[in-house]
C-alpha cells in the first residue's frame, strides 16, 4: 500500500500519505443557461480513523463533493485519491448514507439491510447475524420485519445507517443524514453515530448544515462558502472523546462554533446587525 502511494507521489514527500485525498477538485455543471460552478479547486485530506465534517450553506457544493468522492459523479478538474490511487469509477469500499433514507419500500427492515450483503455476495448467515446486531445497537431490535412505511423518519434513517455499515466499510460517506430529523432525534442519532464510530474506529466524511453537529462529531471541520464552492477554512476540533451533550454548553465548544460562524460572517453569508 505504501509502495503504491510512493509511486504516485512525484515529489516523494516524507509525511504519511493520507488515506483519502481531494486534490484541486473542480466541478462545473453544464446547463441550458449559463454553466454552474459548483466546486472551485477544492482540496482536503483525511487520515484513517478521522471524522471529517463539511459544513456550508445550501448550494455550496457539499453534495457535489460527496458524490464525486464516492466516484458516482465525475470531476471537471482535479482528482480524488484513495490510498494514493485515483478514483475512476463508483467506489465499492464505502458506506453511503443520504439525506433521505433511500430504503426500498418493498423490502422489510432486515432485507433492506441485507441488500448490501446480497450485492457483495457476503455469506448469508454471518451477515444476517451482523445485521441484527447492528439493529440492536441502534435500538431497532424487534423491527426486523417491518416495512419502511411503518417506521418513523428517525427509525428509517437508522436502518439506512445500518445498511451502510453492514460490510464494515473502510470509508463512510454521509450527506446530511440527520437533516430531516427533529432536534431531539438528531441529538440521539449523533450520540449513536459517535458510539458506532468509536466501536469500529471508522473513517467518516460527513456533510451537514449544522455547525454544532459538525463540531460535536468531528476531528476536523471543513468550512465551505458558496458561488463558487470553495473551502474557506479547516478547523481541528480538539475536544476529548467520547463527547457529551453537556460539552456543547462548554466554552471550548462555543469557541469552535464561533470560529465556524466567523467564516460565514466574514464571507457575507451571515449578516449581524
Amino acid at each position, binding site marked *: 500500500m505504501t509502495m503504491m502511494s510512493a509511486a504516485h507521489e512525484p515529489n516523494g514527500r516524507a509525511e504519511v500519505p493520507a488515506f483519502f485525498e481531494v486534490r484541486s477538485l473542480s466541478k462545473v455543471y453544464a446547463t441550458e443557461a449559463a454553466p454552474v460552478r459548483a466546486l472551485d479547486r477544492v482540496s482536503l485530506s483525511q487520515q484513517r480513523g478521522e471524522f471529517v465534517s463539511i459544513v456550508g450553506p445550501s448550494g455550496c457544493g457539499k453534495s457535489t463533493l460527496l*458524490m464525486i468522492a*464516492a*466516484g*458516482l459523479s465525475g470531476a471537471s478538474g482535479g482528482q480524488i485519491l484513495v490510498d494514493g490511487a485515483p478514483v475512476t469509477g*463508483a*467506489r*465499492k469500499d*464505502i458506506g*453511503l448514507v*443520504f439525506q*433521505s433514507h*433511500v430504503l*426500498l*419500500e*418493498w*423490502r*422489510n427492515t432486515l432485507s433492506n439491510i441485507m*441488500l*448490501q450483503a*446480497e*450485492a*457483495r455476495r457476503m455469506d448469508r448467515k454471518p451477515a444476517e447475524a451482523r445485521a441484527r446486531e447492528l439493529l440492536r445497537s441502534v435500538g431497532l431490535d*424487534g*423491527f426486523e*420485519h*417491518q*416495512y419502511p*412505511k*411503518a417506521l418513523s423518519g428517525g427509525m428509517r434513517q437508522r436502518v439506512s445507517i445500518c445498511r451502510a455499515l453492514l460490510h464494515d466499510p473502510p470509508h463512510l460517506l454521509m450527506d446530511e443524514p440527520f437533516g430531516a430529523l427533529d432536534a431531539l432525534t438528531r441529538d440521539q442519532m449523533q450520540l449513536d453515530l459517535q458510539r458506532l464510530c468509536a466501536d469500529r474506529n471508522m473513517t467518516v466524511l460527513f456533510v451537514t448544515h449544522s455547525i454544532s453537529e459538525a463540531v460535536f462529531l468531528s476531528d476536523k471541520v471543513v468550512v465551505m462558502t458558496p458561488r463558487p464552492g470553495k473551502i474557506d477554512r479547516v478547523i481541528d476540533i480538539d475536544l476529548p472523546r467520547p463527547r457529551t451533550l453537556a460539552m456543547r454548553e462548554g466554552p471550548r465548544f462555543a469557541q469552535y462554533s464561533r470560529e465556524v460562524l466567523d467564516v460565514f460572517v466574514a464571507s457575507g453569508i451571515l449578516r449581524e446587525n
Partner: protein
Amino acid sequence: MSSMTDGSRIGRAPDHDDPLSIEAVEARVQREQTRRARHDRVTRVVYPIAAVIVLLAAWELGRDMVGLPRFLLPSPTEILDAMLRNRAMLLREAWVTGLEVVLGFALSVAIGIPLAVAIFQSPLFSKSVYPILVSFQAVPKVAVAPLFIVWFGFGMLPKVLIAFLIAFFPVVINTVMGLASIEREKIHLARSIGLSKFETFRLIRFPNALPSIFAGLKISITLAVVGAVVGEFVGGNAGLGYTLMLANGSMDTALLFAAIFALSFLGYALFWLVELAERLCMPHLDRASLRGETG
C-alpha cells in the same frame, strides 16, 4: 347515561371527578375503536347492497308507473328471468369472450413489458420506436377492427388481436414511465454497493416500477374487454358481443340487458384478478399497516 352527564356537568360528587387511569381510558378508546371499525366494515357492505336494492325496486315499480313499454326497458325481474333462462348460453358465450380478453391481455403483457424494457434500455429504441408508439396511440383502435376481420377471418384470432391492440399501449407506456421514474439516490446506492446493471434492474428498478406497471395493467384489462366485444360486434359468431347483436336484432331487450350484466360481471372478475395479482406481488402495500400494530 343521563346520570353520567349530570355528574360531569355539575361536578357534585368528588369521586366522579377523579380522572380515569390511563389503562381505563386506553381500554375505552380501544373498545370504541373496535366498535367503530366493525360498524364501518358492516356499513361498507350493507349500504351499497341496500342502495342497489332500492334502485332495483325503484326500477321495478317505476317502470310500470311511468308506463315504459317492456321492449324499451325490461324490469329487473324480467332481466333476471332472461339471465336464468339463457344461463347456459350466457355462460358459454362469456367463456368465449373471457378467453379472447385473457389471451389479448396476456399478449399485451407478454409483448408490452419486454418492449417497454427495450425502449427503456436502448436509446435506439427510445428514439425510434417510442415516438411511433405514442403517436400510434392516437389512432382509434376500434376503427382497425374491420380490417382485422378482413385479414384474419371470423374466428377468435381477430378478436384476440383487437383486444391486444387496444390493451397494449397502457402496458407499454406505464411500464416505461415506471422504469424511468426512480430517485437518483436509489441508483447511486445500487452503484456504490456494487450491483451490476442487470442486478440493479432486477432488484431495484423493476420492483420500483411495479406500482406503475399494475396501474397500466388495470387500465389494460378493462380495455381488453372493450376490444374483444368490438371484435365480436364487427364480425363474430360467438361471445357476449355476438349475443348482444343477436338480442338487438330480435328486439329482445331483456336478453340485451342480461348480456350487458354478464359482460359487466366478466369485466369485474378479470379486474379483480389483476388486483389480486397486484396484492400478491406487492405484499408490503397492505401488510405493512397490519403488522405495524403488533410490532
